[in-house]
């Protein structure tokens, strides 16, 4: 009983001034907080025990660490948008058709993220990455480090260890290059489908999605080693790639859910009903548990075996006055809260619960990255203060602006997608 639907398929998201104002306000608030944080750190922070290994602690180091946390985090949310888009095609999913443009819009952040990431790396390298010091690789130097020397080729090959980290930079450029290429390819194919129609685009997008997913499977893991794991250069964890991916994925799903609910509240996407929202809620719920599973798998083995070179990672965090409490904030926000609140069907079908949980999850996974980056870079000089909150708001606002302004440029619904009709009748 297929009935002709009278949905407006040519609808476009109008990025109105009030919405922009809210985003600019949040970004501005973040900038002010960031500035206050910097001033407080620059003029008031010297009386503490700022000595660490003979180097005086400088506030710029904390600024760089903050840049790095948000670079990695928002790159993740952006690429998860493209990843989730590709998954829909690879899985031949029909339910999500009306949401595809939201997912792919996140990818517009990738070029900006690439520039920010490279720039931050070159400005901050010694302050963030211990392995960038050349004396580590000099066997005659008293600070020679045999373990890092053994891992040196991972950064410097084929050049001499301690010189220019060519292999590392090439990987970063390649990953971003391919991610941006795949993002543009998928986006353009999807937009061309709007004009020309037919089913051939769907098959072409599925093919490109499959290729992208294979590339992403490898690159997401390696990028996690490069950008996050290498901060704690001595330490290693074999599931770190999936851990970072899981964190990205939950945050990205929460962002997709929030944008979907926001658009519905604004009166768009009338073909998206509570069944679609329910499915997004299920994804957030399920992958929150997946993240917990990965987090705990990493923790339990290290805790149980209690090998010093492994357990140092958790001792740095759990026994620290600065970071200890945030371990529990991390688990409560990213596991206990979504697990208990989103367990029932009703919670996943009511926007208010999803808005609350998804917002807290986006903050919660930022805390996760905060805990991955800061202890290894700042030690006891770190913390969650005005600088951290400010930087998160600045990045969040910038990300939201880029994603939403690109979303407003083209049709909100892929109107010639062969499975659009199936999406209308989604029922669970």
């Amino acid at each position: 009983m297929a009935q002709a639907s009278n949905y407006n398929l040519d609808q476009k998201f109008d990025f109105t001034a009030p919405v922009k104002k809210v985003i600019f306000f949040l970004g501005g608030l973040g900038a002010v907080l960031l500035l206050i944080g910097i001033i407080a750190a620059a003029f008031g922070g010297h009386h503490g025990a700022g000595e660490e290994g003979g180097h005086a602690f400088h506030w710029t180091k904390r600024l760089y660490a903050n840049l790095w946390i948000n670079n990695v985090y928002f790159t993740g949310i952006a690429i998860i948008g493209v990843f989730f888009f590709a998954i829909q095609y690879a899985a031949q999913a029909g339910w999500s058709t009306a949401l595809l443009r939201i997912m792919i819009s996140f990818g517009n952040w990738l070029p900006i993220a690439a520039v920010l990431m490279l720039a931050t790396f070159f400005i901050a390298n010694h302050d963030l990455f211990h392995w960038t010091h050349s004396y580590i690789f000099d066997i005659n130097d008293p600070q020679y480090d045999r373990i890092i020397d053994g891992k040196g080729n991972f950064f410097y090959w084929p050049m001499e260890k301690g010189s220019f980290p060519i292999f590392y930079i090439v990987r970063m450029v390649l990953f971003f290059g391919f991610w941006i290429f795949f993002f543009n390819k998928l986006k353009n194919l999807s937009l061309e489908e709007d004009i020309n129609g037919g089913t051939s685009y769907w098959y072409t997008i599925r093919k490109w999605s499959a290729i992208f997913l294979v590339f992403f499977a490898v690159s997401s893991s390696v990028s996690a080693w490069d950008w996050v794991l290498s901060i704690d250069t001595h330490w290693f964890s074999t599931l770190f790639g999936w851990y970072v991916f899981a964190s990205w994925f939950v945050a990205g799903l929460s962002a997709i859910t929030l944008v979907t609910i926001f658009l519905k509240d604004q009166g768009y996407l009338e073909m998206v009903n509570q069944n679609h929202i329910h499915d997004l809620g299920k994804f957030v719920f399920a992958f929150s548990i997946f993240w917990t599973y990965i987090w705990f798998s990493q923790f339990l083995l290290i805790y149980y075996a209690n090998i010093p070179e492994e357990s140092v990672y958790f001792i740095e965090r759990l026994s620290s006055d600065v970071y200890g409490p945030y371990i529990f904030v991390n688990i409560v926000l990213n596991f206990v809260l979504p697990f208990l609140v989103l367990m029932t069907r009703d919670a996943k079908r009511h926007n208010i619960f999803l808005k609350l949980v998804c917002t807290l999850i986006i903050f919660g996974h930022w805390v996760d990255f905060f805990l991955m980056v800061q202890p290894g870079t700042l030690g006891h000089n770190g913390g969650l203060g005005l600088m951290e909150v400010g930087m998160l708001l600045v990045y969040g606002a910038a990300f939201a602006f880029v994603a939403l302004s690109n979303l407003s440029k083209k049709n909100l619904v892929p109107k010639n997608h062969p499975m659009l009709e199936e999406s209308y009748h989604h029922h669970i």
Partner: protein
Amino acid sequence: MERDKHFILGIFDDEDILLSAVKEVRAAGVKIHEVFSPYPVHGLDEELGYTRSRLPIAAFLFGLLGTTLALTMQFYMMKFDWPMIIGGKDHAAFPDFIPVTFELTVLLAAFGMVGVFMISSNLKPWAQPRIFDLRSTDDKHVMAIDIASNGSVDLEQIKSALKASGATEVNSKSFE
């Protein structure tokens, strides 16, 4: 309670006709005993006026029981009954208990849910299933209407309501 014995069956070819028929027959004041279909029909539960299953509540409670049981068991064994030091940890090393707790929670939730489902659906091994029409396992949808529970409605009225709503056949079925 004695089981109902006499039924009127409406046979339907098409799921869309079935869905509208369920709506019409119920609107005519007839109580539907059950609808049998070869495959799940979306929206049929709502049309039949079924309330949501309470099975998830049972699953949650059994899961909670599993969690409690697992933690109690491990704390009792490791702290009081036979304290052992493993890997230099405290007797009651909470993180060590999580895997067993997780497994028992899943196990009891799953078994409990299956058990409750079997009991509430009367799926005991010795149950004698009543076959209303064998074709409901092939290509027909069968709507069964219990005559006894529709005491006030005239039989002919039920039959004509079924016919009017698109049933290809209207049959009677009695069980011993």
